[in-house]
Structures are given as C-alpha cells and as structure tokens.
C-alpha cells in the first residue's frame, strides 16, 4: 500500500508580501500589482455603457447597478454585522415611493428627490426594523421578510400611494448618459466607501457585534445603536437604488416590493463571494444579464436563482471573489507529507 501522501500547500506570492508593507510605493511593478484589480473594476464599469450594443442593454446596465447597490448592502449587513435581511425589496420600495411622491406631488427634480429619498427612506427603514435590533437570532430575518409582503397588502387595502395602479408620470433623468453614469458612480462610491468603513473603528465594532456581542456590551458600547447605524447605512444604499429605479422606469408601483429585489442580491452575494463586498457586484454583473436573457421564462428565473443559491451555499460557499483572490495572492504546489 502506498502510504506516501501529498497535500496542496499554499504560499503567498512574494510580491503580495512586499506590497503589504509601506514599501509598496517603491516600484511600479508592486504599485500596479496593488492597483490593477481596482482599476480594472473601475474602468470596466465606466466604459460599460459605451460597449453595450443597444439602448436595451444600456438600460440593463443601470438595473445591474441598482441590484449591485442592494447586494453590497446585503453583504454589509449579513457578513459584517450578522443581520440577514431577506427583504431587500423593503428598501427599494420605501426609497422608490418616497422619491416618486416628492417628484410628482412636490415637483422636485430627480437629482434633488433622490438624495432626500435616500436619507429619509433610510431613516424610515431603520425605524421599521428597530424593534428587532436589540435581539439575537432569527428575528431580523423574519421581520425583514415580512415587511415587503405586508406593505403590498397595506397599499392594496388602504388604496394609498396610487393603489394597485401605482404612481405614474414621474420625471426621468435628464438623459440616459446621466442616468447610467449616476448609478455607476453611486455603485463605485458606495462600494469603496463601505470597504473603507468596515476597516475603520466602527467597522471593527460591527464585526465584533457579529462575532461576540457580549464583548461589545462589556466594553460599554450599545449594540442596538451600532446595529441601527449599520442598518441605516445599508438601507440608504437600498433606498438610493429604489429612488433611481422609479426615475428610470418613470413609474412606481407595488412591484417595487417584489421578490426579485430580495432574492437576486442574496444570490449575487453568495455567488460572488460573501464578505468581500466586491464579490456581490461581480455576482450582479453575472446574474442580472443572465436574468434578462431568461426573461421569457417568467417566475422560473426565481426557481433558477434559488437552486443556484442552495447549490453554492452547500457546495461552494466561498464564491468567485474569494477564489479569485486566493489565486491572485497565492501559489499552490504539491508537497509530500
């Protein structure tokens, strides 16, 4: 019997070790090793509208960006604070309806209505979710799952906010280039902003809330407050997406609370790489166009996402981005045991 066994050894690349320190700025090679992935992402997103063949696919890019905002917000909440939000549609709906109302009733132009809807919507969402923030466990998932479903019932029952017809006659962006670059820039801004945020002091506290909340409490910090801050930030991202989407479609209705907005960001996060923040954006870039191609299949698409989601969670829980990072930073070789 052959008792000799081999195992795979992973070693950091030399250049990775060198660029970890301050001396990264000493040579072009190391500088580009550090900045290349980021530049590829930024430039790639910025030229996307130019390379798209038709108006239709340019519109798809805007939708991708909105889903990307939601997915980053899901990733921030789930993997940095430990709150699983099953209701991304709540954020989209609140932001969307607020912006629609401000545009149609108060006559604010889109570029003024969107920021206000973002901040006010985030406040409303945080207030709605506040009761489950002092608690551990599955309560946040349950409550966030219920709100979008309950919202549609309330709108239907009271016949407010346009009822089942929705609100029509909303102004669009000045032109489609403004629309696309606005959402793309917002995605980049929030992506890098959140990456920065999780490495600041507050990010450390948030991760501590996820890993060991008693330690945070013992340090004299209010867990509820920090969770509320995190929920505010991520619902602001969702509301921004919702506010943009009503101005893109020039219509706001109950479909803003639809399941797609809850499930696609989760699927994108799991596929792209949970906890990397860039992964969810990549996941959206893959999933949303695929979803557009499969449009004729209707709700079968949701089945398709759900099954992919289960498959990835069970068998490949690391996701594309974590895999990519490992290949980029490390070499693998077989060694004898």
């Amino acid at each position, binding site marked *: 019997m052959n008792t000799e066994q081999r195992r795979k050894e992973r070693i950091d690349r030399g250049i990775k070790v060198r660029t970890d320190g301050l001396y990264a700025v000493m040579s072009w090679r190391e500088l580009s090793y550090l900045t290349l992935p980021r530049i590829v992402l930024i430039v790639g997103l910025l030229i996307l509208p130019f390379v798209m063949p038709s108006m239709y696919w340019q519109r798809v890019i805007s939708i991708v960006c909105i889903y990307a905002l939601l997915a980053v917000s899901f990733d921030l909440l*789930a*993997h940095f604070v*430990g709150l*699983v939000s*099953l209701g991304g549609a709540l954020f989209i709906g609140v932001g969307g309806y607020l912006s629609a109302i401000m545009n149609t009733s108060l006559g604010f132009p889109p570029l003024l209505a969107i920021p206000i809807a973002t901040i006010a919507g985030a406040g409303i969402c945080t207030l709605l979710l506040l*009761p*489950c923030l*002092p*608690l*551990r*466990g*599955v*309560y946040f*998932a*349950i*409550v966030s*799952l*219920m*709100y979008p*479903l*309950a919202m549609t*019932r*309330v709108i*239907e*029952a009271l016949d407010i906010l346009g009822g089942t017809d929705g609100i029509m006659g909303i102004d669009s962006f000045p032109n489609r280039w403004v629309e696309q670059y606005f959402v793309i820039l917002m995605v980049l801004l929030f992506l890098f902003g959140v990456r920065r945020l999780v490495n600041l002091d507050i990010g450390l506290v948030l991760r501590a809330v996820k890993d060991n*909340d*008693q330690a945070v*409490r013992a340090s004299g910090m209010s*867990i509820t407050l920090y969770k509320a801050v995190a929920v505010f930030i991520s619902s602001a991202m969702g509301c921004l997406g919702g506010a943009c989407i009503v101005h893109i479609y020039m219509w706001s209705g109950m479909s803003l609370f639809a*399941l797609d907005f809850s*499930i696609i960001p*989760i*699927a994108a996060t*799991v596929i792209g790489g*949970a906890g990397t923040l860039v992964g969810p954006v990549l996941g959206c870039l893959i999933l949303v166009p695929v979803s557009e191609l499969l449009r004729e*299949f*209707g*709700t*079968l698409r*949701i*089945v398709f*996402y*759900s*099954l992919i*989601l*289960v498959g990835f*969670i*069970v068998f490949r*829980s690391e996701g594309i981005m974590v895999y990519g990072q490992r290949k980029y930073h490390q070499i693998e070789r077989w060694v004898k045991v």
Partner: protein
Amino acid sequence: MDILIYGTVNSIALALMALGFALVYGISRVPNFAHGALYVITGFIAWSLLRGLGLNYLLSIVLAIIAIGVVGALIYQFVLIRVRGMAISEIIASYAIGLAILEGLRWGGFKGTTYTLPVFIEGSINIGDIPVDLHRLLVIAIGIAVVAFLWLFTHYTRIGLALRGMAQDERAALMLGIDSDIMAVVAMASGAMLAGLAGIVLLPLGNIVVEKGYDVLIQAIAVCIVGGLGSWMGAVLAAFLIGFAQILTVVYLGTHFQMVVALLAIILTLILRPSGLFGMQKELEERV
C-alpha cells in the same frame, strides 16, 4: 356568537399552521422558511393524486402527507445538515428552497382559482342561529386531536422523549446516546408532515394558490414568536390570541388587515417581551 365560533376555528387553523414550524425550530434550531411552501405543495400533491390519477380521496391524502414527510427529510439530509449551525446559511438555504418550490409551482401553471380540494364532509349545521359548515367543525376536532397526539407522542414514546431531550440540551442528549442528526431528520420530517396535514385540512376551505405559501409562513412565524420560539404550548395559546384578534379585525376593519395583525403582533412582542409568552429560551440569551 359568530365571532366566538369563527374565532375558534381560525385559532385552531393558526395552531395547525404553526405547530410544524415550532416543532422544527424547537428541536433542531433551524428556522424552516420553507414551511409555507411545504403547506401549499402538499395541497397540490393531493390534488394531482385525486384529480390526475383518480385515486380515492383518503388514499391521496395519506400519500401526499407521506410524500411531504419524505421531502422534508430529504431537504434536511441533503441541504440543511451541511449548513447546520451557520445561522446565515441556514436561513438563506431554507428560504431559497421555499422560494424554489413556490415559484416553481407558479411557473408550472398552478395558479388561479381552478385548484380546489373537496371538503371532507358536506353540509352545515346551525349552532344557535349561526350556520357553520361541518368541515370547519372538523378542523376544530382535528386540531385538538393533533395537539393531543403531539403531547402524548412527546411524553410517552421513545422517539418523542428523545426529541424533547434534544430540544432541551443537545449535548446532554448526545451523551445519552441520542443521535442528534437522525433526530433532527425525524423532526424535520414530522414538521413537514404537520405542515402538510395543516394544508390538507385547511385548503378545502378555499382555493389552492401559491400566495398562500407566504401568508402561511408569516402567520406561522407570528404565532411562534408571540408564543415564544421553540415552545409548542405557547404556540397553541398564541394561536388563540392572534386568531381572535384577526377575526375581530376582519369583522370591524376588513379582510386586508389580517396580515397586518400578524406583523403588529410580532413587533409588539419583540418590543415588550422578546422571548414570547412562554419562551423556552431564557430572556437573557435572546436580548443582547
């Protein structure tokens, strides 16, 4: 008087919906977000057996409930067991399975008002001067029977005692030779069968529609939270609270507000008494 009767029926119905969820959560600490989907799909299985294959009604009911038990066991054995203990993955995986089932049914054309199961007993009787159809009375009887059966099962049989042991302290149960994985599969299968039974009993009162899956999930969760997650008797009592509250809102406000009652009940419970009326978890563990 009609409030009393219909409130009781509604409460028992809620208890039936919630018991499966409470059982699975109480024993394996897995929030089964596929609960509503299991409820609805059992109705469709029974419908297909009855109308498609032309089987006897009783036989198709029994087959449908057995089938859903197997589905529940398979879901646990092949998916949930691999992510056990990872709260985020548990929630996402079970939610995704539920969505896949429900939206798959919707895609498969199971929508609209064409799908109904026949009631068990036709006809109605008058209690006082209120006409009540016999099926609703049967719901009450079945509900009481199920609760009694569960109580006897968990107090006087080996498997039932093992399940309760696991619910109380998994490590101690392991030490006493109870295989927690097998017990969790049993719990999931019986939770699924309870969901299926609830579906079979309650679906004849209306159409089988996919949207019911979400409603049932939410009402079951609301009942479980108000009663205290993991507590079965709490769930039954909470079902009466929410059941009567719902009937009162329907009478005085309108049918659309049923869902809002469930939501308000959850929110109020979380604010006032997070561990529920009869929470098995100590309050300190839950409230950070």
